[in-house]
């Protein structure tokens, strides 16, 4: 049996940030926004439900969350239900499973939902930090108390040390993405900043400063992924999945990372996706990308390891503005994790939905990629960066 094409035909968000709302509230807000966005599909049409959620057991004291979401959204799932946990890539993993199910002919309509409740109140930030650090090996990494900023700071330090990358170049990434988010109504951080703001913000995990970092975010996003046949019934403009690659080294602990300045798995996953999509020159052929800027340094490394520039030239790519809306590839027009925040399970879903909205031209004009973008990419790393997921999308499935 030949694999079938699958396409995003719409979706929606809850508002992201410090929300006075529960995990269940957020799931319902994103579910409603999704069904409100897509004419012709209701919960009764959904055959498969795929929920990205990382730590509901600790952040919301709740497990078995996919069936809970089915109940909340009124979906009688007839084909496949799954909750995915792949740390910061969980939303993208949910989307990948939905794509595989449709490609394999198992179902025609899937809801992909990502939900994370992370803010538990100021008194409980240490609980959130503990849960986050334990995506690494708790016994040998988490025990050292390092949080995400201090872990990624070591990548920033090594990249500066090995390639001469500057903090100003990193700051350019934060400025670009936060300024995109200033025009995104669901983003957590909607304030414009400049390079000096970034460099002068508190060095929370040196060499990285506060504005080099994403946030702790409550949020949710949903999208409907359907077979090509169904997509053509519903709409003229869809975002077809053209490639999906994933790579994980035999390693998760910091103790077994081969590099602190690069991510070989990002290259492997990207090459897999490019190969499936028939992409030879990603810089020339990709119009828009949503990539995992959990920290400013992450996006710099991804420019390199997604194969857009030579190793060590990521900082220059940022400095030259090649990732701006009118650059070679418009990178993170949504605002990225730096601007939107990072509700772990929701991020990948939100990124893919942004690519669809860029294709349809439904985003705010200040962050619309010019000249009708037709090809896009999403990328997420997870954990220690030992895992990378890359998906390519296009308006035309061929």
């Amino acid at each position, binding site marked *: 049996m030949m694999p079938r094409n699958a396409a995003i035909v719409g979706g929606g968000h809850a508002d992201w940030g410090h929300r006075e709302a529960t995990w269940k509230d957020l799931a319902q807000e994103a579910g409603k926004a999704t069904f409100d966005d897509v004419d012709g599909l209701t919960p009764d049409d959904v055959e498969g439900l795929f929920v990205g959620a990382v730590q509901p057991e600790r952040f919301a004291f709740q497990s078995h969350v996919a069936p809970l979401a089915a109940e909340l959204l009124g979906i009688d799932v007839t084909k496949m239900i799954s909750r995915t946990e792949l740390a910061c890539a969980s939303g993208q993993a949910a989307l990948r499973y939905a794509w595989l199910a449709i490609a394999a002919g198992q179902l025609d309509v899937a809801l992909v939902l990502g939900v994370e409740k992370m803010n538990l109140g100021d008194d409980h930030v240490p609980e959130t*930090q*503990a849960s986050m*650090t334990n995506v*690494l090996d708790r*016994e040998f990494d988490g025990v050292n108390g390092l*949080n995400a900023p*201090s*872990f990624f700071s070591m990548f920033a330090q090594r990249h500066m040390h090995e390639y001469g990358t500057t903090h100003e170049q990193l700051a350019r990434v934060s400025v670009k993405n936060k300024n995109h988010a200033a025009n995104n109504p669901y983003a957590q951080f909607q304030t414009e900043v400049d390079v000096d703001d970034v460099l002068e913000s508190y060095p*929370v995990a040196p060499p990285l400063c506060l504005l080099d970092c994403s946030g702790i975010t409550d949020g949710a996003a949903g999208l409907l992924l359907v077979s090509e046949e169904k997509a053509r019934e519903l709409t003229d403009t869809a975002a077809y999945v053209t490639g999906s690659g994933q790579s994980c080294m035999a390693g998760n602990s*910091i103790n077994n990372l081969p590099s602190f300045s690069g991510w070989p798995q990002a290259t492997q996953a990207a090459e897999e996706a490019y190969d499936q999509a028939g992409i030879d020159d990603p810089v020339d052929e990709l119009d828009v990308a949503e990539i995992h800027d959990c920290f400013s340094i992450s996006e710099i490394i991804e420019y390199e390891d997604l194969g857009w520039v030579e190793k060590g030239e990521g900082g220059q790519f940022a400095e030259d503005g090649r990732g701006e809306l009118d650059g070679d590839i418009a990178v993170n027009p949504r605002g990225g994790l730096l601007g939107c925040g990072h509700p772990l399970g929701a991020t990948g879903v939100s990124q893919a939905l942004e690519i669809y909205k860029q294709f349809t031209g439904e985003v705010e004009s200040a962050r619309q990629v010019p000249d009708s973008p037709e090809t896009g990419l999403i990328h997420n790393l997870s954990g220690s960066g030992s895992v990378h997921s890359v998906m390519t999308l296009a308006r035309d499935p061929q």
Partner: protein
Amino acid sequence: MTDADNTTARSDGGSDTPRTTVTIPDSIELPRLLDFYDLQDAEHTRISEFYDRLRDGSLSTTECRDCGDLQFPPRVMCPECTSDDLAYVSLPHHGTLFALSAVRGSGPLGMTDDTPFVTSVVDLDGVDVKLSARIDGADYDDLSIGDPVTLEVVDIDGPTDQHRVFYRFRPRGDTA
């Protein structure tokens, strides 16, 4: 809506509604967990020898007797050849800082009083092992990539009767 539903709706509210109180204890004793450190004896982990040796002041790990692969952290199965015939071997106590940062915001549960503290990757001398480790006895601003460091054994105080240990590093020559 049924007649019964209507009856319920009409009787809702007011002082006649029965009520009771459920009392939740001020604190709930949980199983010992969430302090990051495993129970380290042979009843709880198959790498207890690593902790026994560390308690005696020696850093060690496992090496495969079949293929020679050196692992860190210690294992019960060789990830190179799937053998379970592993031997404990000593690791050097000296190394250099490969990368470092500091935790200046909130530390995780149980470590909030420790901040700010230095986190690092230590490249052990003479072997292909880079460890994730905290650095004691120095501030971030006083340290650089390449600085020499030496092992420090940390005794873990409470909340179990077990004598638990872990490792950190400190600048070499610093004996404070």
